[in-house]
């Protein structure tokens, strides 16, 4: 699975499941949690999604706003541990 596939799947998940608006124009470097776009509970949801979809377990100390606030950060974190 390449970067663009990971990015697309994550984007779809964030728009449909978390923001609940498939038409939302999400920027790759847009702060998703810090801007209040999704609530901080959703970080835990992203942790579950990353494991179920990409087989990447992100430990709790890495599931923070600073480390996971944008699509770019999430994609990079997932690709880091993805075989």
């Amino acid at each position, binding site marked *: 699975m390449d970067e663009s596939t990971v990015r697309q799947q994550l984007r779809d998940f964030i728009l449909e499941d978390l*923001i*609940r*608006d498939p*038409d*939302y*124009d999400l920027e790759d470097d847009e702060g998703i*949690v*810090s*801007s*209040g*776009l*999704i*609530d*901080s*509970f959703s*970080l*835990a*949801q992203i*942790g*579950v999604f990353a*494991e179920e979809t990409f087989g990447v*377990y992100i430990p*709790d*100390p890495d*599931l*923070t*706003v600073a480390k996971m606030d944008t699509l770019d950060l999430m994609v990079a974190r997932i690709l880091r541990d993805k075989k």
Partner: protein
Amino acid sequence: MLSRQTRQTYTTLLDAACLQSGDAPVVTFVATDAEPIQWTRRDFAGRVRHAAGQLAQFGIQPRDLVIIAHTQHLESMVLFWAALYLGAIPSMFPTLTEKLDPDIYARNLSELVRLSEVKAVFAASEYADFLRGMLACSVYSDSDLLAAPSVDVQPYQAQPEDVAFLQHSSGTTGLQKGVALSHGAVLNQLASYSDAIQLNDRDVIVSWLPLYHDMGLIAGFLLPLVQGVPLVLMSPFDWVRHPALLLKAFAEHRGTLCWLPNFAYNHLANRVRERDSLGLDLSNIRAIINCSEPVRDDSHQRLVERFADNSLRPDMLAVSYAMAENTFAVTQTVPGHQPTIDRVDLAALQQQKRAIPVEAGVPQVSCGRVIAGSQVRVVDDDMQPLSERHVGHIQVRSDCMLTAYYKRPDLQPFSVDGWYQTGDRGYLAEGELYVIGRTKDLIINAGKNVYPQDVEAVINEIEGVHAGRAVAFGVPDEREGTELIAVVAEVDSDDAAEHKRIKREVRSQVGRATDVTISYVTLVERGWLIKTSSGKIARAANRDKWLSQQTVRSEG
């Protein structure tokens, strides 16, 4: 321990176990990325006396109101008790965060300072300088406290009827009503409630709840500290991102009791990863008590199914109906017994306002029986008491009620015969209370009270939205186990790019102003919103209209 039986031996909250000497643990603070910190009674009481001396040096006097607007940490707990020790009136308040608009936060806090004549605000060091420039009172940070000298002070000789502290509900609207509670009322509540949950000296309370919320402040803070029951506390910010932290705390500290709003059951069930819960032993739990938002049977079932392998059982689930105006609990189910499920006919419930039991009916979860010292009645629109299984307004009368809304003589909380109108609707059956809805336009999102008018006020300011033509309401969500927030706003433009801009602004500005997340934004053409005969936006009618269109869309 404090119970109805020993109640007379306690005069004020300063008789609390946490202010006594000895090595018994008072609180253990746990975090994802740090080692636990544990304080004994000796540690805690010593710090409280020291901080009380610092507050006195700052010029804080008995009966002064102090606001503790901090991150959830041990120091803010000490400040609360230091204020009580000195006879000042503390009130917990949410901290400013990076997510919030600092000017709006400061404006709200400034309004509270002005209305309630606040003497001092305690805030995190990174925000103290900013707040100092915005508020007409003293502001002290953690670093100010580290540096400040202390003097010896004697504990204030409060009278039982003196106001001990205030509880504030959230939002601009909630801030205007500080619930003032006396020492006597709080002790009455703690005594009756301890009896209701059969509190004992083997209990350990685990909590992530914010201390500015009644459930966090009373059940997750004052109850254990007054009773000498160990508290294992964590930050709500930490817990929402890392829900397994709560389960680890149960397993590692042999936790027995916990209070959770309904959404937390879904959050735990959906978002704790298998490997994070593997092997955690939850068998010491006596009761996980569902409180502060509508209780859903399916949320209970999800939690038990998800953690059955960790020895979680259905009889460990309990329910309480509570409100800040009654200090905390009004009712409680019996620990060790699964809450009663009343299956009733939905049409009769909605149309005849009757709860008629039928086998295949919709499940209503009991909130249990009223606790000692409190009374509940259900009345019709003319305030006439109704018999069992008739749905009406829930009213409460008790020995643990608020004294008043602080410095608001214009707001009378009680009816002439002393009943408090809760704003909730429900019915009684076989002596147990079932809460089925609200008459007030309040949204409860993830355990937090959200006033729609606060959200609408933000949206009305957004360019492109017709001022006064926006509505916010709650939508129950099965997956999340809470009400999600939807807004509908009238706009002139039908340009797609402009719609995207407005939607983005709605989400970000509401988030920054009120710290709530909007789940659905719908923009509509002028004239879509239904108004009442007096020209106001009718929230319930617009909610129904929006919901019916959602159904059509998802079916089509």
